[in-house]
């Protein structure tokens, strides 16, 4: 952890979906009215198959979509009644892939995180520059500051985007599949960073594809299936074989993680339920085994 104790942390924001429903006019995809309370300082992963509604939920949370049913509240205020700038001062979004058509340097991009705080005609203040430096330091992108974003690797780009979001000094961070397309090393490094930020008080909601990483890092998981929340709670409650089969239409074995006290998912190919006998030496406690032994 970089030593940067001066980082101001106002405490996380609370976000609530209240009976929030959304229907896309073009595709017809519908998010059933959903109620979800993300308390200050929580770290929540949204799980589900492709098209289950993870991105829709994130976009509703960010105020990029306006719900047709219900509403979304940020710190007790309906998002629909807040100006974009006000929202951006509380909430930051890290999209999955960001392509930048022009040759911005990393420092220039991270400085864009100050947009909601800076007046259109005025320059950045010392406080703005300090926030940018802190964001670069926390994400360890200081060394990249004067390089072109377009020249960076996928992992570096993701870190830069998180730095930009942190320069916004948000109290709630939304991330769309932060670990997608990253190698194992960067996946863990990034999730470690998120956990550190969360422990300082930042509320975090991220959509995740990797169930095992989600189980390792997120104390609360929300599982979606075709626009409906089918489970919401700690990993051990959410990641059960029955629920995962329901959500992903695959058979899985749920074991205990060999080191950590969290569930560990082993997908089974082609509906196969049994495990090869030579692996029997190790102790396993799975409901899947009991069912199909």
């Amino acid at each position, binding site marked *: 952890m970089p030593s940067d104790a001066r980082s101001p942390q106002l405490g996380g924001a609370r976000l609530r979906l209240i009976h929030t429903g959304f229907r896309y006019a073009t595709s017809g995809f519908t998010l059933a009215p959903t109620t979800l309370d993300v308390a200050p300082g929580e770290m929540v992963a949204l799980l589900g198959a492709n098209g289950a509604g993870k991105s829709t939920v994130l976009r509703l949370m960010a105020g990029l979509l306006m719900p047709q049913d219900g509403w979304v509240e940020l710190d007790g205020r309906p998002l629909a009644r807040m100006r974009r700038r006000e929202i951006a001062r509380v909430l930051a979004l890290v999209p999955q892939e960001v392509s930048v058509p022009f040759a911005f340097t990393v420092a220039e991009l991270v400085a864009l995180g100050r*947009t909601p705080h800076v007046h*259109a005609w005025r320059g950045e203040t010392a406080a703005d520059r300090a926030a940018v430096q802190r964001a670069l330091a926390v994400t360890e992108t200081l060394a990249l500051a004067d390089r072109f974003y377009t020249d960076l690797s996928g992992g570096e780009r993701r870190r830069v985007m998180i730095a930009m979001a942190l320069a*916004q000094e948000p109290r709630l961070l939304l991330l769309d599949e932060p670990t997608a397309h990253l190698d194992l090393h960067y996946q863990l490094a990034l999730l470690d960073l998120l956990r550190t930020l969360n422990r300082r008080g930042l509320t975090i909601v991220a959509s995740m594809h990797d169930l095992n990483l989600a189980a390792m890092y997120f104390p609360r998981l929300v599982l979606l299936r075709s626009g409906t929340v089918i489970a919401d709670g700690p990993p051990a409650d959410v990641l059960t074989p029955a629920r995962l089969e329901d959500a992903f239409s695959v058979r899985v074995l749920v074991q205990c993680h060999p080191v950590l006290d969290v569930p560990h998912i082993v997908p089974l190919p082609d509906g196969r339920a049994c495990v090869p006998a030579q692996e029997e030496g190790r102790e396993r406690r799975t409901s899947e085994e009991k069912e199909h032994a």
Partner: protein
Amino acid sequence: MGDLERGKPEAEAACMRKGVRRPSAPVALGIAGFVLLGAVVTGVAIGAVPIDPRHAALILLRQAGLHPAVVDWSPAEETILLSIRLPRVIAGALVGAALATTGALYQGILRNPLADPYVIGSSAGAALGATIALLVGSTVTLLGFGLVPLLASLGALVSVLLVYSVARVGGRVPVVSLLLAGFVAGSFMTGVMSLLIVLNDRLQLRIRQLFLWLMGGISVSGWQQVQVVAPATLVVLVASFGLARALNAFALGEDVAAALGISVERTKLLVVLAGAALTGLAVSLSGLIGFVGLVVPHAVRLVLGPDHRLLLPATALGGAAFLVLADTLARTLAAPSELPVGVLTALTGAPFFLVLLRQKKREYAL
């Protein structure tokens, strides 16, 4: 995150280049301003009657009330310079600034480096307006403007606003719709224009005039038009600089821009309005001058970087200087006849741009 640098970056370090250093904004704008001043002095000094550049500079300084009156030039020089060449040069500067800035605005909002001021239908609208004006053949003037510039301006404005409203679906204007609507509307209006030309004998007699206009000639006969266009252009230009921060955020896509607190649709509307106004003002002084709006923002971006807070004003200054010089060449190369400046902008801008692009290809994400 402490161990992120471990192991991974060795391979990347090999291809890592030295950090980028941007020129400082005041220095860059200062240089651009001087280049523009130099272009203006050159522009007023060169012509059928050559004027000593020192005289030209002194006459301009005196006119600006900055120089003690030591008059050692002929009154004829002063008259030619002040009442014939200067309005023409100022007109060129205004057109260049307007078109180049519009190009930068559209490239930013469309996130497309190939956008130019005419990309969403304004050229076809202006051309159709000019065609109709020639068809009517009236000698009406308003504030010193003939019917051709009046209808061309109107055509550019109306077509852009039309395209914008056609592309608007449920309160949103998707960029792709904007480009498609611009393309379709442009094709349609070009079709109407061709039809008018083919069907109308009187228009065929004026086809050369229309062609020269389409090739982009500056047509200014005195101060009157410039006096009307200059303040309006300057106001819109400066106002558009206020969109710089929003355009920077747009580089990351509309979702990120919105997440950074930008009102996405409002910004698009303001950019389209500013672009339509600037293009309309430009075609009130000149025909369709290509290339300025595409090349100047690119060139400036390659040298100064993509930050619109610097890019927009520097592009305005650069576009003004570029068009003044191009127009000076257009007036003198084939003297006594004049070339349309649009031909010159293409002939000089294209090679210049290619050299820049080759030099900096790696740093440029096209």
